[in-house]
């Protein structure tokens, strides 16, 4: 009898907390999402209905921001994957005894505040930073081109800020690959590229999927990068949400 009840007793306080402050609010949110505004009531007076057209209206009204959030987050996720994969691969297979130190170094930049990092990028890419003048001198960008307040800056900020969510799951799954499988592939006359395509990549797929999800979800729900590095033209859907709740 005692053996059966122990786990439930351990779960009780935590789950009671999560139920009250996580499940209940979400239910409340879902419930209010189908309400209808009262015809001649004051602002903020709603009647409980099952008006699912609200979802359609919300999408139509904020079509631009929805699309933008999706596209920005998608590009940032793909860039993060491209940057992280070789990094995770090198950490898992080529770092040798420096593995732990390098792993700490990969996470270390994210010990500084998320907001400070984003502001730092704003100033690095800004008019007073060193990137814009040197690119202008090299002729890569024209005199009138700026990097901040653009979609480029927003996507690049998102890529940078959510990078560890991609690198760590990738590293975890690549690190589990038995190096002998790669050797076997080489012994069977596969070249480096074929080994990667037929052995390494399929075996690391769980990491790719996990990393993609873990990066895409916060990226699509982010408005800090868009707000600090972007302009009104890069506004994302969550910014709309934040405004409607707090103003």
């Amino acid at each position, binding site marked *: 009898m005692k053996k*059966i009840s*122990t*786990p439930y007793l*351990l*779960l009780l*306080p*935590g*789950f009671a*907390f*999560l139920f009250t*402050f*996580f499940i*209940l*609010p*979400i239910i*409340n*949110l879902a419930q*209010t999402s189908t309400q209808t505004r009262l015809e001649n009531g004051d602002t903020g007076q709603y009647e409980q209905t099952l008006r699912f057209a609200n979802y359609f209206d919300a999408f139509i009204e904020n079509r631009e921001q929805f699309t933008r959030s999706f596209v920005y987050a998608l590009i940032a996720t793909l860039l993060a994957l491209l*940057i992280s994969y*070789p*990094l995770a691969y*090198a950490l898992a297979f*080529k770092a040798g005894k420096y593995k*732990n130190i*390098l792993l*700490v*170094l990969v*996470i*270390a*930049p994210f*010990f*500084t*505040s*998320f*907001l*400070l*990092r*984003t*502001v*730092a*990028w*704003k*100033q*690095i890419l*800004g008019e007073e930073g060193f990137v814009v003048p040197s690119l202008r001198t090299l002729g890569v960008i024209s005199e009138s081109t700026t990097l901040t307040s653009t979609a480029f800056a927003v996507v690049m900020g998102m890529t*940078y800020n959510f*990078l560890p969510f991609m690198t760590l799951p990738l590293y975890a799954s690549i690190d589990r690959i038995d190096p002998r499988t790669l050797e076997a592939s080489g012994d069977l006359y596969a070249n480096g590229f074929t080994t990667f395509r037929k052995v390494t990549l399929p075996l690391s797929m769980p990491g790719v999927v996990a990393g993609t*999800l873990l990066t895409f979800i*916060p990226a*699509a*729900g982010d*408005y*800090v990068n868009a*707000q*600090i590095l972007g302009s009104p033209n890069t506004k994302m859907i*969550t910014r709309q*949400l*934040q405004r409607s*709740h*707090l103003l």
Partner: protein
Amino acid sequence: MSVKQKDASIPTLPLGAVISRWIGRNLIRIYMVFAFTYLFIPVAYTFAFSFNDSGKSNLIWKGFTFDNWTNPCGAPEVCTALGNSIKIGFVSTIFATILGTMIAFAIGRHAFKGRSASNLLIFLPMATPEIVLGASLLSLFLVFQINPGFWPTVIAHVVFCISFVVVTVKARIASLDPRLEQAAMDLYANEFQTFRRVTLPLVAPGIAAAALLAFSLSFDDFIITNFNSGTMTTFPKFVYVSAARGIPAQANVIGSAMFFLALALVIVGQVVSRKRKVS
């Protein structure tokens, strides 16, 4: 003619070939240098500008000074915000660590009905976008006429920190050798003694890591905090609000100090765990 040329080229390869061969061999190292440069640019920038003799707006390099480091409260609003963030982080970490560790033991150590459902419930807050967590919780508080502020923020932080604590502690529990506990039982330790003298000390590093993770998540959170903290400023909120006109250099000092502190903690943790393994 062509044979002669080929013979001559064997001992000394053309420069282009030498370079491309060197690049081919060191491709991964070159990539790592680029990747780490990219990762550390904003950190280096934040650190460098913490020494800027900038006055109010820390946008342009004006001269080197230690003043910001010797007087981090020179911009008083930075210190107030930092104090609030530390308070919120501390209280949230305690609650999240206790609740999360209990759940981790239940899921990691016991087979019971609803275990996979429990795992799902733990996963959900991590998969929910922050904005949904923050906004839905604020709506609930408003329904019950609770004003945003310190405690609502703490509650919100505990919600998203619990899951990370559970995952971290559970991983540690899973890596324990069950024979150690069996040995304690064989030596006539009762269940409680085994837990206190064997299991808990072995899981402790995992709990410590989880608490550190919870604190840093709470300290760094902006979106959820922005919804539930009302007029209370936190460090990220302060940086966000003052980003437009340039943040004071003292904020860079605090950011850099946090960075070095966290790095030191991680390194100490690594060294300690390595020593344990050796001995």
